[in-house]
């Protein structure tokens, strides 16, 4: 009971830090996934005088991922009011060629402009439809989303800093007594602080394991997965290896900093 209480306060502080950190990571992953999805949906339509191959498009701008020819049949169908087959074939030849370009990533408005300019410089290309208006709107939304995440990060940072600071003072009080007593019996500095560092590292490991269990559970939680699915977002909620390493790294470093500060602040009372 006693030993559980000794660990509890720091473990709780560390777990809440790890929890917010992982939420940030998940949000970041969601944005990345959303961006990829946007990139796959966004396309630029190009009208050309002559037919062009995909390789030719790829050479025009590194941003271009693929180019597909749009069939002129749809266009012709609308014009098709009693035209004979021969005329239609002729029309097909004279009609300009339509291409749909997919990009490697979701572009910024600037990138859209640059790309449009570049494409128009080509002699063969007569018109570029970049849907700039819609694109700008979506992009602004994305930027707003990211700003919110940054604000959230700062808020988490402030709250955890306060949490750690409070923890530090409790620790300072709790451990200085024991360190003082050990000093009065001639314990060298490393021995006085050994207990503190051991406790800090054990707590960091406990906090990592607790967070690990929580997120493994969450990442298999069907309700949560359903929510992301309805949002059409594909993401890894918890990567058991990478994220555990992050948990261990962050909590061990934090706890060690905490312990070091206490050791540095410690002064023998008279």
């Amino acid at each position, binding site marked *: 009971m006693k030993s559980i209480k000794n660990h509890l306060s720091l473990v709780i502080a560390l777990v809440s830090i790890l929890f917010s950190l992982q939420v940030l990571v998940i949000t970041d992953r969601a944005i990345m996934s959303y961006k990829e999805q946007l990139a796959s949906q966004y396309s630029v339509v190009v009208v050309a005088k002559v037919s062009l191959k995909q390789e030719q498009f790829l050479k025009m701008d590194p941003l271009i991922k693929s180019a597909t020819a749009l069939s002129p049949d749809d266009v012709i169908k609308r014009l098709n009011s009693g035209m004979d087959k021969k005329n239609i074939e002729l029309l097909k030849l004279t009609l300009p060629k339509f291409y749909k370009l997919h990009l490697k990533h979701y572009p910024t408005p600037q990138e859209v402009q640059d790309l449009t300019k570049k494409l128009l410089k080509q002699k063969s290309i007569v018109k570029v439809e970049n849907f700039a208006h819609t694109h700008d709107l979506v992009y602004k939304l994305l930027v707003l989303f990211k700003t919110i995440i940054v604000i959230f990060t700062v808020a988490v940072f402030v709250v955890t800093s306060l949490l750690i600071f409070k923890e530090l003072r409790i620790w300072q009080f709790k451990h200085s007594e024991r360190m003082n007593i050990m*000093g009065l019996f001639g314990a060298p500095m490393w021995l006085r602080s050994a207990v503190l560092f051991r406790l800090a590292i054990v707590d960091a490991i406990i906090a990592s394991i607790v967070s690990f269990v929580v997120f493994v559970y969450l990442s298999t939680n069907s309700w949560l997965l359903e929510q992301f699915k309805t949002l059409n977002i594909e993401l890894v909620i918890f990567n058991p290896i990478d994220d555990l390493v992050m948990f261990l790294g962050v909590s061990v470093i934090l706890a060690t900093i905490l312990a070091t500060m206490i050791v540095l602040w410690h002064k023998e009372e008279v």
Partner: protein
Amino acid sequence: MDKVIIADNLTLAYSQSEAIINRASFSVNSGSFVFITGASGSGKSTLLKSLYGALKPNGGSLVVGGVELKKVSNSKLNFLRRHIGIVFQDYKLVREWTIEKNIMLPLIINGYEKNVITSQVDSLLQHVRLKHQAGKYPQELSGGEQQRVAMARALSHNPILILADEPTGNLDDYSSQLIWNLLEGANTQLKTTVIVVTHNIPKNMNVNYKHFHIEYGSIREVN
């Protein structure tokens, strides 16, 4: 005879303006038993603090166990403290440790082997009649029992010098007698130098002792 403590014109103060001990000179022979008395607030605890190096002399010199405490390095002070056993007025037991672990502390610090520590702690627990309480925490014990734990800890590493600050202050007769017996035992059997701050020197002491009295910042021997 060797001197464990040599104080020469020793001045102790917490602030520049007021000296608690003023230019006191005295010495303590190795293996002797010393009582220190004085009114409350006269500076008895302050003097003990200086003897284990928690309070540096403001003037004069103070040599304990051959170490000049006026200008001592941390490592040398730690070395000296490993050979001193202190019983504090407020016990100073580690809350989050069991009685057993508390008594072990000086043995751990002195790097004793595990089996030596176990047997030593076992015999001490028997001596202070706390064998059945070994796994408890200090807060779960009465004041008298805590005082006995503090006593056992001070004796555990067979120190050359024991400093005890009112070790029987407001204790029941049973605990008091136990503590006097232990201090006398350490002095006669192990030749440990014992310095005890107390308000009343027991009538039935079995050892020869010296008596210092502190008054108005000076220390004089009472015969």
